């Protein structure tokens, strides 16, 4: 199973509010859809008013379902909006002339790409779905109005951009000075935290619709080395992979292997607001 491409399916939201004490408490009488990952993510960075939540829900409604391995925008294209992932996993990737590629970021539910993309005349990388996704394209004009007229939303979106950059730095460290098993362990730890924030992971499990080849191109390893690392993590009783569901059996050990510290995800920003 480990060497086969895993057929991608939508990542299904899991209500983590009962299991993760780090998540913000739901309001006593929820008047809004607490499962909206865009709202959940931005609320993680700072308090939002009801009007802000309502606005975010309105603009993220009617997401379009897009199958796996579809380019949402390609390197060289003129940016025509900000892509928002509401379900599934997409990625940023760069290709070499010889066909080799490297994945430089995963975009999970609630992630919006490149707020200031309107300042650029062309994309320097490609954004592609890895699994089936639900995607919204926010017009550049809408994003400008969000930033100009809704300070709380603007603040959270800016923090989100900083976190994207911090995550990229962490990934550089990953490929630059971590071993094969450490790279994989780090990525699995990061995804647990990111997916928990938006309600797409339980305390210890999440849907992981990423093929082993995608994983190899993410962590800069061969497919064989990725498979060996996953097997080793299984042998040690650290993870369990059943179909597309990843279960972390020994979170402490996984974090220890990866030297994972979630500080770069800046989850404490809300408390500091």
């Amino acid at each position, binding site marked *: 199973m480990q*060497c*086969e491409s895993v057929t991608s399916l939508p990542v299904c939201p899991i209500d983590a509010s009962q299991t993760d004490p780090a998540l913000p408490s739901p309001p006593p009488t929820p008047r809004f859809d607490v499962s909206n990952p865009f709202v959940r993510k931005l609320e993680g960075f700072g308090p939002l008013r009801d009007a802000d939540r309502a606005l975010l829900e309105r603009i993220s409604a009617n997401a379009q379902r897009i199958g796996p391995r579809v380019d949402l925008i390609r390197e060289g294209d003129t940016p025509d909006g900000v892509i928002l992932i509401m379900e599934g996993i997409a990625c940023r990737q760069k290709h070499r002339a010889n066909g080799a590629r490297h994945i430089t970021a995963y975009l999970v539910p609630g992630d919006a790409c490149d707020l200031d993309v309107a300042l650029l005349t062309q994309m320097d990388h490609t954004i592609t779905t890895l699994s089936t996704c639900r995607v919204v394209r926010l017009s550049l004009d809408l994003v400008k109005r969000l930033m100009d007229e809704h300070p709380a939303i603007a603040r959270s979106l800016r923090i989100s951009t900083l976190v994207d950059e911090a995550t990229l730095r962490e990934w550089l460290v990953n490929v630059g000075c971590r071993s094969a098993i450490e790279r994989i362990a780090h990525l699995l730890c990061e995804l647990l935290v990111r997916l928990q924030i938006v309600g797409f992971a339980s305390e210890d499990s999440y849907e992981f619709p990423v093929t082993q080849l995608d994983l190899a191109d993410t962590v800069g390893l*061969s*497919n*064989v080395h990725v*498979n*060996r690392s996953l097997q*080793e993590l299984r042998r040690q009783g650290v993870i369990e992979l059943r179909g597309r569901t990843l279960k972390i059996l020994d979170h402490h050990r996984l974090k220890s292997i990866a030297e994972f510290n979630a500080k770069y995800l800046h989850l404490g920003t809300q408390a500091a607001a």
Partner: protein
Amino acid sequence: MTMKLQPVQIATGSNDRESRLVFEDGMLVAVLVLLSGEHDAHAGKWFLEGGFGPVKDVHAPLFDDLETAKAWISTQLVDITSRD
């Protein structure tokens, strides 16, 4: 050019152990490892565990047999020679 293979066991930290050191004109140019049953559909194929000089390629294909692997390694060596 003469290519010779030397059987060897390698501690890869996995069940992939059976290996071949590949020498070209007496110089070690590559290490091939036979993929174990852990690799399911790819079990029984040969993996370039390590390549030296022009044979180093993180995107090398998996090889169905040693003859195919030798042919690919020869191509890599010839390619670099022709660029010189």
